[in-house]
């Protein structure tokens, strides 16, 4: 299958390893990956902060870049939720553009979050990964409540050989990232992060994983600040790792 990758701005600039891992997994499964160079950002930061006119500009850019793509894969739950769930709002209520609304609604069924593409579009649960570490999984809010991915990502993790997967207590609660919330309401965000880290540390895991590097940047930043020794790793990187080629 030809797969168009929307890497997201955070992964492109700060977590390129996640993008390389996605490419490795998809190619290993026999798919052809393309990366449209005109892509930048889905507009989520502007949208969630109230800068809706700027966000509309990025919606138009996304639509132009990906309108001919058959299948669009995004290794981020929040960016996928933005494209599928919020583009129609922006087209209808901000741009007030019928044509744009039709375009984003027509495109939505072709947009998949990375784990969703594997489990729901391809029907896979075992992607041949090997990862000999103790891991706990943080289900991001968008995975749970916007995309309704349910147990999909966990199913993929359960089929990774060598993994010691431990359940994260209170795993439906937000980690406190919330985009610019983490800066505007830094103290409340920190209080939420502290409780999330407490739960992560209680599992004894070496690695906390998730399908979204924005949650992980926040959680990992806290774990690093506290010198916990626990690291955050995107789900794609765990799935990319094999016995022959462990993911660095």
């Amino acid at each position, binding site marked *: 299958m030809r797969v168009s990758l929307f890497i997201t701005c955070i992964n492109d600039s700060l977590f390129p390893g996640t993008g390389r891992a996605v490419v490795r997994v998809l190619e290993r499964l026999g798919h052809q990956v393309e990366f449209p160079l005109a892509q930048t950002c889905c507009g989520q930061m502007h949208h969630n902060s109230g*800068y809706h006119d700027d966000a509309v500009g990025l919606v138009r850019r996304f639509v132009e870049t990906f309108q001919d793509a058959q299948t669009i894969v995004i290794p981020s739950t929040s960016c996928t939720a933005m494209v599928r769930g919020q583009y129609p709002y922006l087209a209808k209520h901000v741009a007030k553009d019928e044509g744009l609304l039709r375009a984003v609604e027509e495109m939505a069924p072709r947009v998949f979050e990375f784990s969703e593409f594997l489990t729901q579009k391809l029907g896979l649960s075992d992607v041949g990964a090997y990862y000999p570490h103790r891991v706990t999984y943080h289900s991001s809010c968008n995975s749970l409540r916007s995309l309704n991915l349910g147990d999909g990502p966990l199913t993929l993790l359960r089929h990774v050989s060598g993994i010691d997967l431990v359940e994260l207590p209170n795993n439906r609660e937000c980690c406190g990232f919330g985009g610019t919330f983490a800066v505007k309401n830094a103290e409340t965000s920190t209080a*939420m992060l502290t409780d999330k880290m407490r739960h992560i540390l209680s599992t004894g895991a070496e690695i906390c994983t998730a399908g979204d590097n924005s949650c992980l940047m926040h959680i990992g930043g806290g774990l*690093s600040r506290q010198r916990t020794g626990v690291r955050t790793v995107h789900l794609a990187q765990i799935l990319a790792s094999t016995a022959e080629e462990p993911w660095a």
Partner: protein
Amino acid sequence: MSIHFPTRAADGLRNTQQRRNLAKATNTIRGKTAKVTAELPDWEALRDAGKAIKQEAHARLDHYLLQLEEMVTKAGGQVHWAADAAEARAIIVRLTKAAGTDQVIKIKSMTTDEIELNPALEEAGIRPYETDLADMIVQMAKEKPSHLLVPAIHKNRVEIRDLFRAEMGEHGTGLSDRPPDLTRAARAYLRQKFMETRVAISGANFAVAETGTVGVVESEGNGRMCLTLPQVLISIMGIEKVLPRFDDLSVFLQLLPRAATGERMNPYNSLWTGVHAGDGPREFHLVLLDNGRAKILADEVARETLHCIRCSRCLNVCPVYERAGGHAYDSMYQGPIGAIVTPQLRGLEEAGSLPYASSLCGACHEVCPVKINIPQILVHLRGRVVREGHAGTGEALAMGVAARMFGNQGALDWSLWAGRLGQKLLMRDGTLPWLPPPLSGWTLSRDFPALPAESFRDWWQKREEK
């Protein structure tokens, strides 16, 4: 005076007693409501029905309100229309004075808090007594409620004992801090008020247009006392609370207790229609309040704010509310629903920080008994904050720069190059432990990852060249 949520929240975060009370109470109530909503096989259908009834009522609000007025009047009640808080206060003060009394008993009502009725009554020489236990505590302590349904959730029993000792006269003398003793004292104190007071003021959970019936649900029985013992009953209700048909109560009397307190049914469900000779109050007045609601109704996205039945389930599942506490919202409406109601009632200039008091985690939308899409409305209101010019100029500038950066691949590449150069000064062990304002909020508690030397795009392009 404008509400600055981050500062108010910082106080709440440092309030050890409140943090513990809230974590314990919200956790307990989450468990209870989850259990009693899961046990109903048609809970989802009930939620949909609740939403549909509210949509229907609001789509023809003028019709149903006029019908309500007609039916209440027919049953011997009187209807008063109040465009705003000042009008509502004036009506209620006038009616109370006309009854020739200098004190009133009150049933827990958020609408009377919204119109700031108590100070207006006091100014007119009328003493209002709250009769809901927690509201009475908050009133005696001269504080503000911190939770829609559990207004004194921030206080512990020792604080309450000291308050009762100071404020309840003989009933408070030598009181212990045991909950049964506290309850007994409150009961004895309140019975006296119920017996000697001639005017009661209540809110209303519902009013039925078809029959002119008004309803209040409660747990303590103080409401039933207020609704039946005094000679004059004055009820105030936001215009959005009207229901078309009596049958609609079958939906809401299931939704509300299960979502609110985790009970299958409220202990007290009071419904009354006008006045009846020889039974209950001699006079019944219904004050219908707009106070900005019609304006909310005109906003296509935000209008479902008015579906709210004040169950407070969104507060109980909100990770921000649980930690920041109710006083951070500076309003009688707290938590996620407060973050969308208050800015719409009081304006974005005053309450523009409230729509940002959320990580948009969606827990509120997931459990709302009438399916209000609170995260969507929060984002919608943020858009209005920016459009109406209430965002900081520094932030607006930064967002503009970011938009241009993302609008052009070359600009993005250049920004990454500049970022890699700039971070050299700040980098320690591959991370950035300190960032300048406004990003210093991030580094309050988190290291920031350093930009790697090679972006994904660089890697991809190199790979394609091979």
